Every structure is written in structure tokens, then in C-alpha cells.
């Protein structure tokens, strides 16, 4: 007994010493201020939990672009990056972003799929500390809309664009009675509002007969589908993303809903959603998407996909595309700015045009939002493949789906 | 002082107490005896409010207390101990008793006076009275079983009760400890003029100490009277002594 107690005490002292060492070491290991330092990009994004799949994909696209850029270098320097995991938590995102700015002294912050985190970082760090922040896959329209400011940019699509794309597309269809359902959080509601606003404007006789909203990540969505089916709408707008996307597709397939009622879901044609479902994905669902690895079928895209496959063994998803263009925006902006200066970088990035896998794209001056086309398609089993993909794709150009600069001004004026 | 009349309590199908009567006069030392499962503990829990009676009356100082919560009953002047050592194991012995004294002085909800300056004299007195003064700074949970039982009584004394209810104060004690505890009880009754109601299954102990004895059997009170009266009762012999 006594021996065991001694052991325990020894171990506990050891444990304490280790803990102390860990803390001290991390405190002492201040980043060395390297002479002739490189350009430093701080990445904050979610690498744990359900959203990790997007965070990792975006980072892969970003890394691929940097490896190309660093072959030649920018202003005689390389672009370095360091990443922090936010775990989809806003308070952690703030901790991490402050750490990147104050301790790592990064020149640019990029990242995060979590819109709440993006907005917190935009306000509390980018705006306050005057550090440029480029969001790549957070989709809240408020980031570059009503809450936009000089230091925040978006290299991703947003809910206003997605909703408008859906609204415009649906207005050409004959449906009158609609049901809206989705994830009960900002993203879902924002898409619903944008889609409905645009649909109603283009086609005033549409009627909303009901709405259902579920907890984000709700595992079994069958009860919602059967309840909607009972109400017999002409068409359904699902406003959902991430893992709920897969869940809704499964429920749609299992209940055979797609055969009964037309459905539009933004990102329904996302490969990250369709691929795991394999042949089990429902066909005939309308979806909009900002990027497909198989569309547009132009050389720039084919090259990007080829390089990505070579590097990571799988096709790029939409986050990889946004990560990729973000890196190029950063590199080109520094080239144009001529020095590693935050203010000059912001000036350079405004209105910047770069070549991308989907053709030339522009960072709009008025709201710092990248102008991107949207692809409207219908899910269908691909010939000779064991998964479902988007077919009959119609391209909606950036100016068709984006709010005008006047609308942005109005939103910010409020 | 205390009068229990026709009290009933059942748990689901089991009738724990079905029609019990008990009278305690001021200054008396009253014992309740009965075999295990006779309903003694249930009866005590009914008196001090841990359980609520299905029907029947409990009159204390001309007031029906059968509907009151335990803390109200305690404030009326009935303090108790429990069959298993029911103390505050992580607090010191001193604090165990002090909490009770503070409660009695209505000082439990005071914020900005240090507790260690309050009710010190009263607490010390009680500890000395029961013989735990030397162990005042020990953590209660680390005391020996016998001391814990004594501490139980000390906590109850902290309430300055008119009536002290002790549920098998000697349960699990060695014969020496039992003797000491009974001595303590008798001393308390004599020196402080306390009215004490206790239950016990050791017959010898009871007959030596108690002035009035109530016998319970299967939830029913059979008789209450002086030691001799009870000893000579045919019914008691039949259902208790004979059976034991």
C-alpha cells in the first residue's frame, strides 16, 4: 500500500512537472522575428466536427495554389501559412485569430466556414486591428453586405447570391404554392429570405403555404418530409447545408419525394454531398452550385482538377476552389501593391481581376465580394459512374445573381 | 407535549405504520421498542416530517405539525438524529455542530459576518457536553463510528430542542459504546431538562433508562406505559418478547 502511494506521488509530481514544462515552453516559444521574413498568412478554420470536411478541402486548395505561387515567389519572398482549428466555435475563433495577429504577426487572415466566427473576426480583429481578412467559404451575405468594411473581403459565394440564383431560376417555373424548409440557423434563413424575395419580385402570384425549420444536423428528417408531403405544395425550397444536406437527400430518396414534388436546394449538386451517397442519391433535384470539378469544362478547370487529384488523390470540392482563388488573390494583390503593407494590400485587392479555373473573376470594389457565376443543374446518375451529378447545367453570371452595388450601399446605410 | 394519534403510512402496498398512538410528556424519557420492521423509524420520520402521514394527527404543543416540512418542525422545537450516521462528512466536527446552532439562532442566511466568529461559545459548550471537544477540528467523515453517532446527537442539540428524537442512537455500537451513549442520554435528560424520545431494540438498555415505553408491532402500537407495566403485559410478551 505504502509503495503504491509513493508511486502515485511520484507520478503526480512528474505529471505536474510535465504540465508546468508544457506551459513554460509554449510561453517561451515566442515566434522568432525572422530576418527578411516571408509573407505570412494565418488560416483559421474548422478542422474538427462535421464541418471539418469543408475546412480541410479549402485548405488543400489553398496549399496547392501556394505551392505553385512559391515556385516563383512574390516580391522575392515566399508565402507561408499557419493554421488554427476553431472547432466551429466563435470564441475559439476569436482566441485563435488574435493569437495569429498579435503573436504570429500574420499579414493576412483567411478562413472559416463558420459565418458567425467570420463576422466576429471581421469586426473584432480585421476592423479593429486593421488586418485584412478574406473569408473563403463563409456564406453569410452580411459579411460583405451590411457589415462590410475596408478590411474584409469574401472570395466565396454568399447567401444573397445563392438565394437570388434560386429565386430567378424558380420564377421561370409554373409552380405557385411553395413550402420552405431548412436548417434553423442564419444560413438557412438567409437563403430562404433571398430566394423568396427574388422569386416574389419576379413572380408576384407565388404563395408560401408553410415553413419548417429543424435543428442544424438533425439526424432524421423523415418526419419533416412526410409533414410537407401532407400539405401538398407545388414545389419545395430546402435551405440547408453541410451534413443536413446529406440527411435531407437521404430522406428525399427514401420517401420518393423527388418524384412527386419539384425541389430546389442550394448545393444539392455539391459533390461532397453526392459522392458518399453514391447511387443512393435522389435524381431530379434542382440545385445550384458555385463550382463543379466537371463544369465548366474548360482547360483552366481541367488543369486545376488534374493538379488537385495528383496532390490529394480526390477531386476538388467547392471549398478547394475558393481556397485556391484566395491564394491567387493574395499573391496578385501583393505583386500589385509592391510591398508587404496591409493598407497597400487592401487597395490593391480592390477591383483585382485574376484568372481562375472558372474563367476570369473579379473582386468587386464596392463591397469586396468576389463576382462568381452560379451553376443551376438537376441531379442525375452519371453515365458509367457510380454517383449522381449535376446535369443540364445553366450558368447564371455574376451580375445576374449578385446584389447591385446600390443595394449594398442601402444595406450598409441602415 | 407530543401526541400522536391514529397515524397511518403505507408505501405502495406495504403498510409501514397503520394506526399508532404515542404520548410524550414534558421532561420524560420515552422509548419506542419493537422488532425490526415494526415501523419505528417510519414513525419517527413521520413525527419530524421527513415523511408525510396518509392520515392521523401529530400534535406538538397544541399544534398539528403533521403537514409541516421538516425544517418548520425543527423550528417548532423538535430535533432529531438518524439511524445511520447522518452528519456532514466533509466539514469539521466543530462546523457540523455550528451549522445547527446558526440555524437555531436564525443566522444561516447572513453573508457578511465570518462564520467562525459566530455561535462559537454555544458550539463549544455542546461539544464539551457530549465529549467531542478534543476532536473539534477533525473532519467529521474521518471519525470513528461511535464518535459519528455522538456527533449526530450533538448536531441535534445545536437546535436547542424541547424534544429530542433519537432513532436507534446505539445502532452498530459495541456494548461499551452503547453504555456510554445511554449514559450521555440520561445525563442530557437530567441536566438540561430535555424531553427525549428514542427507539431501541436492545431491551435491557431501554428498561433501565426509559420512564415510559411504547411497544410497536407490525406498524401498530400495542401499549404504552411504565417499564413494569410493559414488562408484565401479556400482549407484549406474546408478540415481542416471546418472538424474540
Amino acid at each position: 500500500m505504502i509503495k503504491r502511494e509513493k508511486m502515485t506521488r511520484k507520478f503526480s509530481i512528474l505529471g505536474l512537472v510535465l504540465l508546468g514544462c508544457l506551459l513554460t515552453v509554449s510561453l517561451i516559444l515566442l515566434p522568432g522575428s525572422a530576418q527578411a521574413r516571408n509573407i505570412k498568412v494565418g488560416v483559421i478554420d474548422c478542422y474538427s466536427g462535421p464541418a471539418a470536411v469543408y475546412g480541410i478541402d479549402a485548405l488543400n486548395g489553398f496549399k496547392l495554389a501556394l505551392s505553385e505561387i512559391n515556385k516563383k515567389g512574390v516580391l522575392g519572398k515566399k508565402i507561408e501559412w499557419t493554421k488554427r482549428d476553431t472547432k466551429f466555435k466563435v470564441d475559439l475563433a476569436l482566441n485563435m485569430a488574435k493569437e495569429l495577429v498579435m503573436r504570429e504577426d500574420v499579414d493576412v487572415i483567411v478562413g472559416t466556414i463558420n459565418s458567425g466566427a467570420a463576422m466576429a473576426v471581421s469586426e473584432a480583429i480585421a476592423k479593429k486591428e486593421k488586418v485584412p481578412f478574406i473569408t473563403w467559404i463563409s456564406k453569410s451575405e452580411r459579411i460583405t453586405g451590411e457589415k462590410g468594411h475596408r478590411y474584409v473581403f469574401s472570395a466565396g459565394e454568399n447567401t444573397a447570391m445563392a438565394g437570388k440564383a434560386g429565386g430567378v431560376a424558380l420564377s421561370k417555373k409554373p409552380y405557385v404554392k411553395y413550402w420552405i424548409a431548412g436548417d434553423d440557423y442564419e444560413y438557412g434563413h438567409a437563403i430562404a429570405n433571398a430566394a423568396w424575395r427574388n422569386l416574389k419580385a419576379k413572380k408576384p402570384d407565388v404563395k408560401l403555404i408553410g415553413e419548417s425549420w429543424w435543428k442544424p444536423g438533425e439526424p432524421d428528417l423523415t418526419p419533416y418530409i412526410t409533414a410537407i408531403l401532407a400539405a401538398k405544395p407545388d414545389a419545395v425550397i430546402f435551405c440547408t447545408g453541410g451534413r443536413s444536406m446529406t440527411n435531407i437527400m437521404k430522406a428525399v430518396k427514401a420517401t420518393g419525394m423527388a418524384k412527386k414534388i419539384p425541389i430546389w436546394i442550394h448545393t444539392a449538386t455539391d459533390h461532397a454531398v453526392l459522392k458518399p451517397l453514391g447511387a443512393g442519391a435522389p435524381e431530379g433535384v434542382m440545385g445550384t452550385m458555385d463550382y463543379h470539378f466537371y463544369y465548366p469544362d474548360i482547360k483552366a478547370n481541367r488543369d486545376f482538377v488534374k493538379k488537385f487529384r495528383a496532390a490529394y488523390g480526390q477531386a476538388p470540392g467547392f471549398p478547394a476552389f475558393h481556397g485556391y482563388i484566395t491564394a491567387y488573390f493574395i499573391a496578385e494583390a501583393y505583386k500589385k501593391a509592391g510591398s508587404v503593407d496591409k493598407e497597400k494590400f487592401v487597395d490593391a485587392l480592390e477591383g483585382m481581376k485574376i484568372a481562375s479555373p472558372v474563367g476570369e473573376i473579379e473582386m468587386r470594389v464596392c463591397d469586396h465580394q468576389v463576382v462568381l457565376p452560379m451553376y443551376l443543374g438537376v441531379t442525375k446518375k452519371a453515365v458509367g459512374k457510380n454517383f449522381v451529378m449535376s446535369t443540364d447545367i445553366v450558368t447564371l453570371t455574376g451580375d445576374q445573381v449578385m446584389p447591385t452595388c446600390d443595394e449594398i450601399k442601402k444595406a450598409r446605410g441602415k | 407535549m407530543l401526541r400522536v394519534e391514529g397515524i397511518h403510512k403505507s408505501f405502495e402496498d406495504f403498510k409501514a405504520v397503520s394506526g399508532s398512538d404515542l404520548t410524550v410528556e414534558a421532561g420524560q424519557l420515552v422509548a419506542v421498542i419493537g422488532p425490526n420492521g415494526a415501523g419505528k423509524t417510519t414513525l419517527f420520520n413521520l413525527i419530524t416530517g421527513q415523511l408525510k402521514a396518509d392520515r392521523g394527527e401529530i400534535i406538538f404543543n397544541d399544534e398539528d405539525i403533521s403537514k409541516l416540512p421538516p425544517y418548520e418542525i425543527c423550528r417548532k422545537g423538535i430535533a432529531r438524529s438518524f439511524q445511520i450516521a447522518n452528519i456532514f462528512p466533509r466539514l469539521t466536527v466543530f462546523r457540523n455542530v455550528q451549522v445547527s446552532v446558526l440555524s437555531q439562532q436564525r443566522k444561516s442566511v447572513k453573508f457578511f459576518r465570518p462564520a467562525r466568529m459566530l455561535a462559537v461559545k454555544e458550539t463549544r459548550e455542546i461539544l464539551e457536553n457530549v465529549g467531542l471537544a478534543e476532536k473539534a477540528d477533525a473532519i467529521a467523515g474521518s471519525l470513528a463510528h461511535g464518535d459519528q453517532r455522538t456527533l449526530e446527537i450533538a448536531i441535534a442539540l445545536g437546535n436547542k430542542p424541547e424534544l429530542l428524537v433519537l432513532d436507534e442512537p446505539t445502532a452498530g455500537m459495541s456494548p461499551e459504546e452503547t453504555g456510554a451513549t445511554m449514559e450521555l442520554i440520561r445525563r442530557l435528560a437530567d441536566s438540561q431538562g430535555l424531553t427525549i424520545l428514542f427507539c431501541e431494540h436492545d431491551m435491557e438498555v431501554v428498561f433501565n433508562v426509559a420512564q415510559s415505553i411504547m411497544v410497536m408491532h407490525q406498524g401498530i402500537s400495542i401499549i404504552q406505559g411504565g417499564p413494569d407495566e410493559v414488562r408484565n403485559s401479556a400482549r407484549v410478551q406474546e408478540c415481542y418478547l416471546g418472538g424474540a
Partner: protein
Amino acid sequence: MRVLSKDFFNLRSLGPIIALLVVLVILPSIIPRFYIYILAVIFMTALLAMSLNMVVGHGGLFQFHHGAFYGVGAYTAALMLTKTSLPMWLGFVAGPFMAAFVGLLIGMFCVRLTKLYFGMLQISLGSLVWAIAFRWYSFTGGDDGIHGIPLPSLISSTKGAYYFGLILLILCVTVIYLIFKSPFGATLQAIRDNPERCEAIGINVRRHQLIAIVIATFFAGVAGVLFVVVEGSVFPDLLFWVFSLELFIMCLLGGWFTFAGPILGAAIMISLRTFVGIYTEYWTLILGIILILLIFFLPEGVWGYLLEKFGFQRKKLLEKEPDP
């Protein structure tokens, strides 16, 4: 002042405390800015964990959703600062009082229940509060939250927030200490050890617990206000049960029967997630492993261990489990 006399404070232990305070006051002029910020975050979390431990460690209640009250305090302050033109300090005062009021409402439902049931009901009620913050877009900003809350730079700069946090922490910890040592605190600890016995010595256990909850939630509200000052944002994550569980773990980790344990627990958790997070995205794994090591080797929490080790307390805090 009698309150602050030696009746309450052990003069011998005041020495190290004053030394520590002096260090904390001069620290911001030596260390880099990020560490000042992290210390401010630690102050805030420590205050929150202390307030939780009032009811968990000292009161024995399964307060599973303390974050809800923290969030209410933060949201109240944030909403008053952004939506009204009332003076700033009014928002700061309203935060804690609102938190205490919600604490009273939820507490009244909860104290009727015991142990895990108490905790589960509190999680449910707290989650309803969370749902309000999460859903009511026009008022609370929904799940995006409210960001860029305007504050004077005197307190919102990194150093300003640090000193503001330090002052609040010292004030609140002093008050919590007074309560801890007061008859109320003593009785609360007795209730933790044995609520049944307390009823039998004339203590209205539920009322006592309810008062404790109200006080604890008040301090949670203070921590919420501090959060607004340190981060300039509020968002529904603060009210989500996951965060509350982490808080609970901080108390257990630091040593929940001790007074200062939660401060240490908060400091350890915040430092781990910040500094281990720099090196690996698998920091929760490391946190888990460290927790297991601590469970096995420091069963009374880190602070409990230190107390025992360095003989501040002669006896073991815990000899035996309370009777169930």
C-alpha cells in the same frame, strides 16, 4: 471595517496573495500583447468558474447549464450598448441583474428537483433561453450574434480589458470569499454534504439553494459583461450546453471542494486550448489525455493537490463519500 478584518482573512496567507497581485499589476508592461489578452480571457473564465463552483463545489448542486446565465449577462449588456442610448455603465449593471433574475426564474423550477434531474431540467430551461438567442434574429442577431460592440478604448484596448478584468475578478473573488466563509456559505456546504440532515436542523434547503443560485448567476452575469469588454462580441455559443459542460469540468479539474481551485482549472483549460492549439489540431485529444492523467494522479484536483502537498491544510479534504 469589521468585514475586512482578520476575522475573515488569515494574515499569513495574505502575503503571497499581495505578491501575486503586484505581479499581475505590473505584468502587462513586460509581456507581449497576446499574453495580456489571454490573461484577460483567463480572468473572465476564472470568475465564471468561481461563480459556478459556488453552487457546484460548495452547494453540491448539479448546475449543468451555468453558461446560460453567463450568456444572458453578456447579451443584456451587449443589447443595451447597441440598441439603446442609455449610458454604458447601466448596461454593465443590468447584465448581472438580468442574469440573476433569469437565475431566479430557472432556479425556482430546478430546486424542486435533485441531482441529475436538477441538471437535466436546467439544461432544458437553459436551452430554451439559448433558443431565444439563436432564433430571434431581429433582436439578438440570431446565431451570427452581435459583433463590434462599441466600447470606450479605456476598457476595450487589450490592456484596458486586462485591468478591468483584474479589478472585477479581485472584487468578485473577495465577495465570493466572504460568502464562502459566512454562515450562509457554511450552511451551503452543509447542504452539499447532507441536504436531508440540514432539513432536520431547521434549514429551508430549497430556499437556501435558490439564494445560492441567484448569487452565482449574478456573478456569471458579471463574467458575461467582462466577456463583452474583452471580446466585443456576443453569440449563442455562450449559452450552449457544450460550453457549460466545459465549465463544469474546469471546476472538477481545479478541485471543486477548494476555494481557489476553479481559477486554476480555468487557467489550465484556457492555456491548454490556446497553446496546444498552436501546435496541433488534435489538442482535444491531448486535453483528454491530460485530464485522465490528472484524474489518476491528482484525484482532488490540481489545487486540492497543491494544498495537500504543501501542507496548507493538515487533513485530507475528503475521507469518505457522503451517504447517498
